[in-house]
């Protein structure tokens, strides 16, 4: 069943087994984990780093930016988490996915190279 809302909980460690419909957020370890919003049961990990996702907490709800694209899962679900709502988004073509992955690899390589300095 496709979720339309998702809650959150702040934890230090991510529990071994997680409930659907909840984003588990660990500021300490810089990650957020939830069970795929399509209901397939796969665990979805959205690392919180300058080159991965940003988490926005408004005091009541959370948002994740950018969107969550589960192209590596069988369900291939794609959605936004915005202010506790799951906003379903369109499927991407193979071409778009490949291009996006290449961009991501380049972004990460560049980011860590620049942090190391000359």
């Amino acid at each position, binding site marked *: 069943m496709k979720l339309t809302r998702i809650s959150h909980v702040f934890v230090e460690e991510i529990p071994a087994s997680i409930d659907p419909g909840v984003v588990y957020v660990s500021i300490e*370890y*810089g990650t957020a984990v939830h069970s795929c919003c399509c209901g397939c049961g796969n665990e979805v*990990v*959205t690392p919180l780093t300058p080159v991965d996702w940003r988490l926005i907490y408004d005091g009541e709800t959370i948002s994740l930016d950018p969107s*969550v694209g589960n*192209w590596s899962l069988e369900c291939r679900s794609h959605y936004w988490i915005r202010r506790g709502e799951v906003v379903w988004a369109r499927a991407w073509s193979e071409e778009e996915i490949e291009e996006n992955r290449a961009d991501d690899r380049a972004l*990460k*390589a560049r980011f860590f190279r620049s942090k190391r300095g000359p």
Partner: protein
Amino acid sequence: MSKPHRDCDDDTITIIINGRKHQLSKHEVSFAEIVSLAFPGQSQGGNICFTIVFKRGPADQPEGTLVEGDIVKIRDGMVFNVTRTDKS
């Protein structure tokens, strides 16, 4: 070169993968090992794309990203974030 910091029980190193602690009794791990600790039972071929970033690593490489085939030295408290999800 500084010696890696160790726990009381001599040779275990605790690393954190996706917010969960794992005890290892070695000083290096590979990309594939981290993926299988993060997603047990997940096959690693085909169209599945994993990305790994790490922080709080040893002094000579405290943070960075790993790609398939990489091996990295670990230290106690090192944090890995592994995902098979694309940001879009």
